């Protein structure tokens, strides 16, 4: 792995812990789904953790983030506390969206986390507008917008890329290229499969990175954020990654082979980083155990908080359909 020079021991541990938190959070979500405590769609980030962790690592509190329906990892990496996230998954009023949004709609104002979005490509135009506002109200702030490679075929992608480019807006477009859009392989949806080259059509700076390598990923994210923050205009970062599990809980995965999946699992970003740190004496067994324990404790507390949560009173159903004012007190 190159670029490791940039990353000291503590930093590497943070990346490792960040990915582990997501992995553990989501495997617990699967159990809770099987127990029917989580319902609806559940899209796992399993295998892609390095993307969100690497990008958030390069962001500051003043920055804005938009994600997709596969956004547990983005919310966690961005710093949204695990407890209200888990409560949201369980549909409790203590959840970050009062239990109204669920897995696909995690929002958090304090962290400028402008939500998951269940409409593919639906977040991109929002990113353009948030960047317009930030350029005026929060100079230097970056808007990071995550989306899958499948979204690249949508008109909303094209229009948003063009607007960001002609207006030189501080938007970081992060394409999570996991090679499939549900069951559609990249080659079936794009003739230009080097997705980062799509940026040329807008004369936008772009790069491609192996997102199964957390250190490479973090380094590429830093360069990208730096470009945007210094006013050089928008940037398109293609992150080559892979989804280890089904698209959602209703997917038989007829469109790909076990062998393909196994091959990618060999490149698991979490395992890979741990082995590499161990091999380079950057992570001791005690440190690994400590991180493990900390994550387990955090998760246990989050689940306990969520399980103990309450249901929003039904008489609140129409609350917030229309807002009384722009500055709302945060959800309880």
């Amino acid at each position, binding site marked *: 792995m190159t670029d490791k020079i940039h990353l000291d021991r503590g930093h590497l541990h943070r990346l490792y812990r960040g990915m582990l938190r997501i992995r553990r959070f989501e495997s617990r979500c699967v159990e809770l789904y099987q127990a029917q405590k989580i319902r609806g769609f559940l899209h796992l980030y399993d295998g892609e953790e390095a993307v969100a962790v690497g990008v958030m690592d390069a962001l500051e509190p003043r920055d804005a983030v938009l994600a997709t329906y596969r956004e547990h990892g983005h919310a966690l990496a961005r710093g949204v506390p695990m407890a209200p996230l888990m409560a949201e998954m369980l*549909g409790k009023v203590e959840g970050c969206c009062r*239990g*109204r949004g669920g897995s*696909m709609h995690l929002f958090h104002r304090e962290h400028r986390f402008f939500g998951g979005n*269940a409409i593919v490509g639906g977040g991109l135009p929002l990113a353009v507008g948030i960047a317009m506002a930030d350029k005026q109200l929060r100079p230097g702030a970056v808007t990071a917008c995550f989306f899958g490679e499948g979204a690249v075929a949508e*008109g909303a992608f094209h229009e948003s890329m063009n607007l960001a480019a002609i207006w030189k807006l501080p938007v970081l477009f992060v394409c999570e290229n996991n090679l499939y859009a549900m069951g*559609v392989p990249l080659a079936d949806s794009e003739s230009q499969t080097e997705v980062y080259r799509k940026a040329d059509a807008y004369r936008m700076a772009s790069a491609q990175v192996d997102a199964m390598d957390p250190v490479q990923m973090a380094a590429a994210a830093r360069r990208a954020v730096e470009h945007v923050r210094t006013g050089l205009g928008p940037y398109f970062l293609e992150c080559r990654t892979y989804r280890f599990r089904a698209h959602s809980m209703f*997917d038989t995965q*007829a469109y790909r082979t076990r062998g393909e999946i196994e091959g990618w699992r060999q490149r698991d970003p979490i395992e890979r980083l741990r082995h590499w740190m161990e091999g380079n004496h950057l992570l001791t067994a005690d440190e690994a155990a400590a991180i493990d324990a900390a994550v387990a404790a955090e998760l246990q507390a989050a689940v306990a908080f969520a399980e103990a949560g309450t249901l929003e009173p039904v008489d609140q*159903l129409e609350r917030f359909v229309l807002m009384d004012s722009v500055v709302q007190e945060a959800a309880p």
Partner: protein
Amino acid sequence: MSSFTPLRMTYREACKQAIRDALLADPRCFVMGEDVGKYGGCYAVTKGLLEEFGPARIVDTPLAEVGFVGAGVGAALAGLRPIVEIMTCNFSLLALDQIMNNAATIPHMSGGQFAVPLVIRMATGAGRQLAAQHSHSLEGWFAHIPGLKVLVPGTVEDARHMLAAALADPNPVLIFEHIVLYNAEDELDPAVTTVDIEHAHVRRAGKDVSLVTYGNSLPKCLAAAQQLAGEGIEAEVIDLRVLRPLDTATVMESLTRTHRCVIVDEGWKSGSISAEIAARLAEDALYELDAPVRRVCAREVPVPYAEHMETASLPQVPDIVAAVRSVVKAG
């Protein structure tokens, strides 16, 4: 030409058999949409069809709703018989321009030179905790658009046979399949091989109140009617089946016997199809009404994820029962 039909099947299987028959019957017919092929369909309706018919007849599209829906319109203009699947009606908003400004408009605007024999299937409705962006019920809203026909199969039989009628129609036909109905199972009468797409059907006879509905609210209304029967109230349950053009004659005829009407609709109340029906009663059947019309619709909110809130936002059997009681008491 019709394929083997098991007597008992699910609504999902009925949708699939209908598509299969269409592909076998007409070489101009093909299926196009997101994940209809390799994935087998988001709701597994097209599962196995790619293997049977190949990629020329079962076309997986990229995520490009305005593109492939417009392509469906173009293919229909040029002589094919596309069955376009919009995975769910929530995404149809991205294709609305092609549906309203081209599909619904070109035949009239061109002075009748071009027809658009296009079928668009989409999943609709709430009830599976998919939250606000995945729980719309837009069929009644689409029914506002001249030039379209809008079908809402509420039974396995209609799911099985409406598609053929839609494909035989020279106009763009939208078919809304309710996500909660896909697993519904029913016996099919082998004698029934076609259905019309003009008329509402009385699904249960009754003399005390006309209960007008469609889609996934139909089973709810039948359950309510059953419960009401226990109280000595006989509700006549009318399944609209087609939201455009709307068959009000059947509703009016029922009203001449019941003189009371409750409309049940999963769409947001204001501007829902229930509004149009109630309006027609106020225009053309005012003197038939012995009690105010009642509408049981979705609450006017984005549908929340939490189960209890989603349930509260949708029409439920107790709401229907209460509405019927109120009109039967009244007047």
